[in-house]
């Protein structure tokens, strides 16, 4: 462990999201730290994806404050437009169902993610058209970065393939690479292991650990695959019916009776006794 302790990167306070009569997220607070993997788990419909949607500017929370701390500057995510969350606060995200740009090549998918830097370097396109030096240089850098991540996710040889034509597991890896190309300080992954075979999900664990330690960012993870969650998480938050029912280390959460009850259901006599 280095001298600088992990600091709180994302602080969620009293997050509440109401859709009409449905309370999807109810007064949830937690902290996700830099250089840590924080998993959000819970049964289907617990409100995990809704939390992500609030974080990335898709939804405006009914109540709550979402603070992202860059160290030198803090952002209040609930007040920002969706593209500014990615551009300024630098929150990256992947989806449960893969959302690559299928009509673009693998490499282009990664270069699009570096749009804002390229836009600035190209003088908002005017000079890009004439291929001036600064723009060429910036584009060269963008390609370098893309190749670095392609190498990481073992897709370097498919760089010019159509993104939509890749096999499923490769598309999942490419999505993570694309999110990383946008230079996030917080990476939100929505079920990255869904549909992966055991070998692929072991690889995913490896990749996420690498991102956490080498790139020193925070990862927020929604996942059902417990081998992934327990294997790599530093910290777990458990939601059920929109409420937080447990929060702590994997050890703590694994033995928490509230979690066991939510996942396995209450036993008849326990329910009786509780009354």
């Amino acid at each position: 462990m280095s001298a600088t302790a992990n600091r709180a990167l994302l602080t969620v306070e009293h997050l509440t999201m109401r859709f009409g009569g449905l309370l999807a997220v109810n007064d949830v607070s937690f902290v996700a730290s830099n250089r840590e993997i924080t998993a959000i788990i819970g049964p289907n419909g617990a409100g995990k994806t809704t939390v992500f949607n609030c974080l990335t500017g898709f939804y405006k929370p009914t109540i709550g404050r979402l603070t992202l701390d860059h160290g030198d500057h803090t952002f209040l995510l609930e007040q920002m437009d969706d593209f500014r969350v990615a551009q300024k606060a630098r929150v990256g995200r992947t989806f449960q169902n893969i959302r690559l740009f299928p009509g673009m090549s693998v490499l282009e998918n990664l270069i699009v993610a570096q749009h804002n830097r390229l836009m600035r370097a190209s003088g908002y396109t005017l000079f890009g058209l004439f291929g001036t030096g600064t723009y060429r240089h910036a584009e060269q850098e963008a390609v370098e970065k893309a190749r670095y991540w392609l190498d990481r996710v073992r897709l370097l040889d498919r760089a010019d393939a159509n993104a939509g034509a890749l096999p499923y597991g490769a598309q999942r890896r490419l999505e993570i690479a694309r999110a990383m190309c946008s230079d996030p300080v917080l990476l939100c992954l929505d079920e990255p292991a869904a549909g992966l075979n055991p070998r692929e999900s072991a690889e995913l664990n490896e990749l996420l650990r690498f991102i956490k330690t080498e790139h020193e960012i925070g990862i927020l993870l929604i996942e059902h695959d417990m081998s992934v969650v327990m294997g790599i998480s530093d910290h777990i938050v458990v939601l059920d019916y929109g409420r937080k029912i447990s929060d702590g280390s994997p050890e703590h959460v694994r033995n928490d009776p509230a979690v066991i009850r939510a996942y396995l259901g209450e036993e008849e006599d326990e329910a009786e006794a509780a009354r």
Partner: protein
Amino acid sequence: MEYFVQQLINGLTLGAIYGLIAIGYTMVYGIIGMINFAHGDVFMIGAFVALISFLVLGIAGVTWLPLALLLVLLIAMFVTSAYGWAVERLAYRPLRGSFRLAPLISAIGMSIFLQNYVQIAQGARVKPLPPLIQGGFTFMEHGSFTVSLSYMQIIIVVLTLALMTAFSLLIARTALGRAQRACEQDRTMAALLGINVDRTISLTFVMGAALAAVAGMMFLLYYGVIDFFIGFLAGIKAFTAAVLGGIGSLPGAMLGGLLIGLIETFWSAYFTIEYKDVAAFSILVLVLIFRPSGLLGRPEVEKV
């Protein structure tokens, strides 16, 4: 033979103008999946701005023709782009996320508004511009018929080719072009990667309007008369061209424009000139029946 070559030249010139307008339709459709029915009227505005700038420059004493042409081109592109931007901002953006037909109806309203606005501001009578660029080449001079290729026609075709090349490069190579293609494929995901989707859409309208302005100026110089209603027919023809080429496809719009121009010209030359519009629109009907995705368009695949 001479007659055929002459019609080919005329058809390509007309097709170039249609192609430039068609790019505006196809780019907007590509990015927001909506037909911008006011685009033909933006073309008309471009022609009027060009006419007014010619007159103002004439009064100001700019009489050296190449300079005057260049200035008019830039002014027309700039002012018309501002109109294109304003149309998007006022008539379409507030309706984004509304039901699919809403922006379409708004577009038709905008088209009617622009026509009436120009009619009131400029009068309903046709506006002439004396021919500025005269002369040309003649060749194949045997017999009574000679083929002529005017300087104006050369300018139109060369300028069109240059602009189309520039725009294809812009879409393929620059960050803005990549952002446009990203928004086309998945707007939400584009926003999550930090792309300002609203601004990208605005710029698409601006680019389409700038090309329409060039088309408007060339129309003015080629035909010498304009009125507030030219945008309707030219707009529908260009829309037909975009559909024929495959809406959403940039090379398709260019190809479609050329084909519509050629079909119209050859029909007028060999059959009846009164029915030239019928010929062009019959093509639209046939394309919609037999190849709805157009010549170069990709069939829409339902997402599962």
